[in-house]
């Protein structure tokens, strides 16, 4: 018996480390880091090309431009965060853009209503947040229950609920922008954690925005506006939940083998419902932040963002088949899209080229992902 034991041990130790050639190793490392590498290359490209085409008068890597990019990606990223969880669990949520619009309208109505009823500004903002996230969560609950309990494909449920939500948003907003919000709301959406004043008497200002007027205002750069700070906090929570908690682990398990997850006693139905609530919830936060930023609610603000958010998720390496991907990938994906579009605008490239370039990057990202799978040897069908 002892002899057979050692033989067993040797055999088990033997096979797994086989076939790890340097070339294979290189490609695997590259495919893991490609999104970072691509982002770095992209930034380098725009830094050089923009300074060349403008004779050095415009620079891509300015403090102001970096902040503009960060502000621009917050809605795409927030939609992408919830979507990351859903897609890792082998689902899809097509309603997020429309849910963001609904949340924007709901929060604007709530802020206006509570403020006009005499509530202080801060309380009105809280009411707006609750209305946005609460309203969105109801949609998520609806999606999740129909997908998990009635076994209707997520694609169909979220497409249908998206249309419904869009109609409700237009009804609630009476097909117009919800305005008349207290002006102080603007500060919540546009003030920043830090300010930097260029030139004389300049320096950093923490939270307190220096009171300036006229020409001096052009020398002031806000750093990390509140929507960016809030999004960063949500990103941090998402990274933690997906990587370090049981909820995250079960999300991967459901995407990898739903039947296995069910057999080990995981409450798969409840988990799926939570995922769609989560996805709608991050869309709700995005809608709330857009209301703060524009001091108005819009029933169409998120309409174009669904596909961008899915593009960010896919560029970031989340597999549409489920089971693979992470939050940081989605952050990089969103950054790549924002850098691309901002850079192309600064190069005076016409807007339609942005679509062509972003579309190409999505396809390249998936190709790189698949080649990695081929190398590892995992078949998608099996």
């Amino acid at each position, binding site marked *: 018996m002892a002899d057979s034991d050692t033989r*067993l041990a040797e055999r088990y130790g033997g096979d797994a480390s086989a076939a790890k050639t340097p070339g294979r190793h290189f490609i695997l490392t590259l495919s893991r880091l490609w999104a970072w590498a691509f982002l770095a290359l992209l930034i380098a490209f725009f830094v050089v090309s923009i300074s060349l085409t403008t004779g050095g008068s415009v620079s891509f890597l300015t403090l102001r431009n970096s902040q503009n990019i960060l502000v621009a990606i917050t809605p795409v990223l927030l939609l992408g965060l919830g979507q990351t969880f859903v897609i890792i669990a082998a689902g899809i949520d097509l309603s997020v853009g429309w849910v963001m619009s609904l949340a924007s309208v709901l929060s604007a109505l709530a802020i206006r209503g509570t403020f006009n009823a005499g509530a202080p500004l801060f309380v009105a903002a809280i009411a707006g947040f609750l209305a946005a996230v609460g309203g969105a969560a109801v949609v998520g609950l609806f999606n999740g229950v129909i997908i998990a309990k009635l076994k209707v494909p997520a694609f169909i449920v979220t497409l249908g609920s998206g249309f419904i939500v869009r109609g409700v948003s237009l009804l609630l907003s009476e097909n117009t922008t919800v305005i008349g919000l207290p002006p102080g709301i603007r500060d919540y959406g546009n003030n920043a954690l830090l300010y930097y004043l260029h030139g004389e008497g300049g320096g950093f200002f923490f939270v307190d925005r220096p009171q300036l007027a006229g020409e001096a205002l052009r020398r002031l750069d806000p750093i990390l506006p509140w929507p960016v700070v809030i999004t960063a906090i949500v990103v941090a929570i998402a990274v933690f939940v997906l990587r370090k908690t049981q909820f995250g682990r079960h999300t991967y398990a459901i995407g990898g083998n739903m039947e296995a*997850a069910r057999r080990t006693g995981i409450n798969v139905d409840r988990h799926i419902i939570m995922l769609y609530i989560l996805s709608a919830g991050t869309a709700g936060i995005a809608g709330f932040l857009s209301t703060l930023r524009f001091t108005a609610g819009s029933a169409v603000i998120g309409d174009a963002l669904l596909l961008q958010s899915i593009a960010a998720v896919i560029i970031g390496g989340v597999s549409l088949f489920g089971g693979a991907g992470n939050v940081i990938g989605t952050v990089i994906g969103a950054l790549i899209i924002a850098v691309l579009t901002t850079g192309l605008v600064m190069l005076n490239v016409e807007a339609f080229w942005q679509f062509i370039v972003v579309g190409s990057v999505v396809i390249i990202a998936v190709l790189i992902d698949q080649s990695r799978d081929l190398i590892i040897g995992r078949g998608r069908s099996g």
Partner: protein
Amino acid sequence: MAEPILSVRNLTKRFGGLTAVNDVSWDVHAGEVVALLGDNGAGKSTLIKCISGVHQADEGEVIFRGRRVRFARPVDALANGIETIYQDLALAQNLDVPSNIFLGRELKRRYLGGLIRMLDEKRMTRESQSALDSLDIHFPNLLQPIESLSGGQRQAVAIARAVYWDARLMIMDEPTNNLGVPEQHKVLELIRRLRDQGVPVILITHTLPDVFAVADRLMVMHRGRKVTEKKTADTSTEELVQYMVGARDDSVAA
């Protein structure tokens, strides 16, 4: 003879007009490997599913460790120590070995009075390592996804999971299917090791050489009925084939 771990008494299961399992009585004792044989459609899967909570018997009863049991769901059978390892193994291919061994029963550390609960990866890895060590299974790296492991290694993970969670009865459905010959031997050695540790194993199989390699006793089903129950040493391949195709039937003679 000691009290059996599992005792099936006069179990019958019908699907509409079809009687899939017909009045089967069967005992499994501690420390033995029992093979369950039969052609496709003989009723062996249905019988097993009635034991493991997938189906509920129409008549008869299942007694497990001295208690009459009737599991509404597979999870209930699992909680009572009946582990069923199906052909598709019920592993999440995208997760690593410890994640699979602890899937659904993750170890956690609590912070802020239980407000934040983090996965305790270190402890899960350590415990997985010792569970695998106890079965003398050795992987170079536990933290690679299951999909990069061989078929036999995956079987080993599924078995280690069952052992770690204190399986009192292990049901294995065609465990050597789709495996190369060396890997088949490894899995059979694991089954022997389980028996030596006192865990009875029910082996559902078509593969007669496996039966003669590891099973102490066997039971053959044909068209829903038990046609014979024997010690492996008292029979031969030819005889078993006759039972499986229905050419012999002890229940009629008796």
